[in-house]
């Protein structure tokens, strides 16, 4: 079983490196975004560094949200090229196949967070956080990436081609970008945000980076909510993709 999962993870990581679209969306885009926001709002660009401090946790989530697009593109692309069928006639189970995607994307999420975190520090981001806080922030991001894998599977179920997946993925990306990251919320948008995974992650990371203990009750409650959300979304994604994904 491990041999199969490792082989698939290796293949997905090679795809990340060798496919320019994947490389850009997963690693270069978050880096460029952080640099642009850092220059516009950070102390290094002559702006108000306190504003960038407020925005940085949202940037972490931003990178992770785009996994929805890459995951859905990857699944639809493989389906279009007959590769899902080909894997389906080997002894590989769907759990092993989707499990390998989850592992790969968790790894990518860790990379994204490391890149965004380091570049943010470079651009003047100064969080008041200890090592436990950083670890907790990583855990939140991992759950958010799990949500993105699930939403990517749902997108791949609906989309007929990789091109369509790109467009459809914005149904899940845009609300999270505007109501679940650093854009200030109104009474109305806060109601929408309550259904968005990125909202809980950004809220929790912002609180942690403001010096609140990562083991505070409110943080643990948000961790519980995002954990339940991610598990629910992934299960729903797997169910829908297996049933209607035309593998």
């Amino acid at each position, binding site marked *: 079983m491990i041999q199969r999962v490792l082989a698939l993870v290796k293949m997905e990581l090679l795809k990340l490196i060798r496919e320019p679209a994947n490389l850009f969306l997963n690693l270069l885009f978050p880096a460029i975004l952080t640099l642009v926001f850092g220059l516009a709002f950070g102390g290094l660009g002559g702006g108000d560094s306190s504003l960038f401090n407020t925005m940085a946790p949202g940037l972490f989530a931003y990178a992770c949200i785009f996994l929805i697009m890459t995951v859905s593109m990857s699944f639809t692309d493989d389906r279009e090229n007959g590769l899902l069928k*080909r894997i*389906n006639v080997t*002894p590989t189970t769907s759990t092993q196949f989707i499990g390998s995607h989850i592992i790969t994307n968790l790894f990518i999420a860790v990379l994204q967070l490391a890149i965004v975190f380091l570049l943010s520090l470079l651009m003047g981001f100064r969080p008041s956080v200890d090592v436990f806080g950083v670890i907790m922030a990583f855990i939140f991001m991992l759950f958010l990436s799990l949500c993105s894998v699930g939403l990517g599977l749902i997108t791949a179920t609906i989309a007929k081609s990789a091109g369509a997946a790109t467009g459809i993925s914005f149904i899940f990306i845009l609300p999270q970008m505007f109501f679940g990251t650093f854009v200030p919320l109104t009474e109305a948008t806060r109601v929408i945000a309550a259904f968005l995974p990125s909202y809980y992650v950004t809220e929790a990371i912002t609180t942690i980076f403001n010096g609140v203990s990562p083991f505070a009750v409110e943080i643990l409650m948000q961790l519980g909510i995002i954990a339940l959300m991610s598990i629910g979304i992934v299960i729903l994604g797997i169910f829908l993709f297996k049933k209607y994904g035309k593998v």
Partner: protein
Amino acid sequence: MKNKIINKIGVNYKMAMKDMNDKEKMQKLIDKLTQDLSSKDKEIVGYLNKIDALEEDILRLQKLIPGEASKIKSKREKPEDIFDPDSTSAIIIKDLVKQFDDVTAVNGINLEIKKGELFGLLGPNGAGKTTTINMLVGLLNPTEGTAIVGGYDVKRDLSKIKEMIGVCPQKASVYKFLKGRENVELFGNLFEMDKKVLKERADRFFEASGLKEASNRKAKGYSGGMIRQLNLIIALINDPEIVFLDEPTVGMDPRARRKTWTFIGDLKQQDKTVILTTHYIEEAEALCDRVGIIDYGELIALGSPKELMKKHDAKNLEEVFMKITGRRILEGV
């Protein structure tokens, strides 16, 4: 009807036993009984003819009513009566039906393929060849009927089947961003092959197919023929007992096709069971022990190429194919 006759025979037999000593009476009884049986026999034959005619009517109607084709089948011919499954059978297909909404892609196919046999599945476009193979390898669930592949039922033991088969899909499916060798290694690992064995087999296949040089290049740069060869290598890397080759030589130049024929011939030498679908009839004629011709989802001819040519008084298999499938087109079946 049958019980009535048996009862009558019983009554007459008892009467005969009483009159055993009266030879004349006995002879009369025998004559009467023979007459009775003869008339009943004619009656039964009459009924059977009527049933046959009705069945033919039903079959004709089935073609006209979408979605109904698979629902009515002959009650007199059960698969158990046809097959004698033993250890020499690699694949047994029993009353296999696949329905897509109102289209019957496969309509009650019964077939047995022996171990070590190279079997060709022929038919025009959309005849049901790929759908049949997809059901045998677990990509589609049969609507009705089932199939036994390598001793395992496709409806129950798919995981066991997947461990012993190799599938070369019609659409060449390889990861373009991976090198040729990486593609082969990926699929070898999905079969949990030993690393050393995997490398040895990959080397042998790349050498034999002439892809040795290209094996360390990304598949993105391969020609169509090279991709198809890589497609075939991936299907064979796990040393499968049963190999499904769905149009393996489409898009290959004549030289690459001949090379692939040698590949397929070698599989026969290794006692592998091969199921080959192809549009190149001469390919089937040159390679296959037996061929089955499918049309409109039904198996309409089965036998060795020589048998079929003799039966249909044809010079080659292509002529047989045209005679059978062409006639069905003209008859509007």
